[in-house]
């Protein structure tokens, strides 16, 4: 009601005697920096053609494996150097942002959509529908993801949509399970009972009462999933079942550079750092959102 609950909430995380402005600034930075990185990522993806100094797919056999500008032998023409085909690493990293971001956003939209639908239906309707859907979830959760991705890559040929389908085909199950749990919890609440008493249909209750209440956890895991999907996409590209060359993708760039590691470390290193930075930002943002919206979900 008044002061005490706040005191307790505030003190649990705090350090003894830590009356510092520093820590408050740090706390804000853990939110502002990741957010800025995300905004930069989005802007870079949209305006890639205007930012990139070179055509990311243009090869130049005379300028292969040039080091970055800040190292001896590098030129300002290629700020982050060139790869084994003489392509500009910086431009490829910039265009790679497009691929990584669009794959992960698309997969998240699909999986979260299907998962939420299934989860709410399963949790609210219960009975046979629940039993059936949960067996489907079991199947999706125990089918080896990389094997599926490999099979699809062989069946459909590697490509953007193959990656999206491979990641979506099993990815929805996690959402479904979480949303089902949340729905079960909400189903027994008074406001749902109230809606039933006033004669609302199942559809209406699921849409108007359950859905808004699962939004918080949904948004949190969607944010956390951005990083996971970028990692998954890069892993697939690394195995050669991701986005095929010459399209630049961070994962395939890391993979391309691995044979040149001893002579041209920059080819794999810069895209690797980008993956790390973006995933890190996604995780930080997700954590921040979770702390703000729903601390109960700390274990996700």
């Amino acid at each position, binding site marked *: 009601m008044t002061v005490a609950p706040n005191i307790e909430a505030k003190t649990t995380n705090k350090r003894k005697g830590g009356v510092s402005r520093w820590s408050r600034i740090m706390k804000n930075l853990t939110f502002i920096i990741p957010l800025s990185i995300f905004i930069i990522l989005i802007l870079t993806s949209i305006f890639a053609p205007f930012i990139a100094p070179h055509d990311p797919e243009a090869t130049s056999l005379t300028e292969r494996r040039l080091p970055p500008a800040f190292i001896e032998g590098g030129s300002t023409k290629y700020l982050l150097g060139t790869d084994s085909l003489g392509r500009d690493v910086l431009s490829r990293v910039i265009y790679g942002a497009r691929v990584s971001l669009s794959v992960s956003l698309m997969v998240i939209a699909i999986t979260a959509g299907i998962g939420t639908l299934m989860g709410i239906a399963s949790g609210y309707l219960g009975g046979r529908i629940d039993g059936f859907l949960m*067996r489907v979830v079991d199947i999706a959760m*125990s089918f*080896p993801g990389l*094997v599926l991705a490999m*099979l699809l890559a062989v069946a459909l040929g590697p490509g953007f949509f193959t990656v999206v389908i491979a990641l979506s085909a099993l990815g929805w199950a996690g959402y479904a399970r979480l949303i089902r749990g949340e729905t079960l919890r909400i189903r027994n609440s008074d406001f749902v009972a109230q809606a039933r008493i006033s004669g609302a249909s199942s559809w209406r209750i699921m849409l108007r009462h359950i859905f808004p209440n699962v939004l918080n956890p949904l948004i949190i895991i969607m944010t956390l999933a951005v990083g996971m999907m970028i990692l998954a996409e890069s892993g697939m590209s690394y195995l050669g079942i991701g986005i095929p060359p010459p399209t630049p993708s961070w994962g395939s760039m890391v993979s391309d550079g691995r044979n040149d590691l001893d002579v041209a470390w920059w080819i794999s*290193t810069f895209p690797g750092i980008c993956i790390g930075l973006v995933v890190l930002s996604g995780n930080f943002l997700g954590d921040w959102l979770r702390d703000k919206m729903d601390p109960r979900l700390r274990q996700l």
Partner: protein
Amino acid sequence: MTRFIIIRILQSIIALIGIMVMVFFLVRLSGDPTELIKSPNSTKEQIEAVKIQLGLDKSYAEQFLIFIKDYSRGEFGKSFMQMRPVIEMIGEALPNTLKLGIPSFIIGMVLAFTLGILGAVRRDSIIDNTVKFLAILGQALPGFWVAIIAVLVLSVHWQIFPAAGMDTPLHYVLPVGTMVFFMLPGMMRLVRSSMLDVLDSEYVKLARIKGLPERVVIWKHALRNALIAPLTTAGMIFAGIVGGAIITENIFNWPGMGRLALSSTFSRDFPVVQTITILIAIMVLGANLLVDIAYAYVDPQIRYEKS
């Protein structure tokens, strides 16, 4: 309790059948294996003969019935490419994967639990901050990238550990390290947050009110409750050893299940892909089942409700 276990086993069998159906059609979706075997001057008759030999001349329905019949009798067929029994090939690959996976799992879990618990108990200390930092970093960096960098630094540059082969214990360091890197961060984070939740609980407060020494409060009252949530994840990680080894084995040229899966998928070696998929699925389902039973052991409420 028995009823609960029987229901869970039945559910797992249903899921397994679903996976068998799925993998059967998926492998056939990936194309015609004879296209990869034939040479430019093979005749139509020769190709037909190969199809008959591999059993691919029959309709999908027939093939499916044979598949189900064989697998339910434990007959996994012969590889299309090597013409050897699949079971033999897996018999060679699986031990290699387990040699990598089991030590990684043990090291990963011991580290995750020790560091996670220490971090929670000594909250905001140097240990805790290191744990948090490692967890954040580990979850963000792609494992294969870290492995590549490790190879560059530790085997190419300094030549401490070999990057390929499996003859000496030294050969295990980098691949095991990579797999631990995949497992550790998420687990550590989960153990830490689960432990923190429990340490904040009223019953831990009550244990302190009783005057119990901190050691007893943590090891007896907090730990057992804090184990409940991470247990599932540990089970899933264990079950995922085979599936998760694909990338690691590829980096280090390790002749295990992951590489077998990759090569046989690309060569459309249906029996091998099917068997590997089903094997992984059985491991995952089995691990889930064990976790559920272990849950019942740790949490009396589950034990009583399900009995």
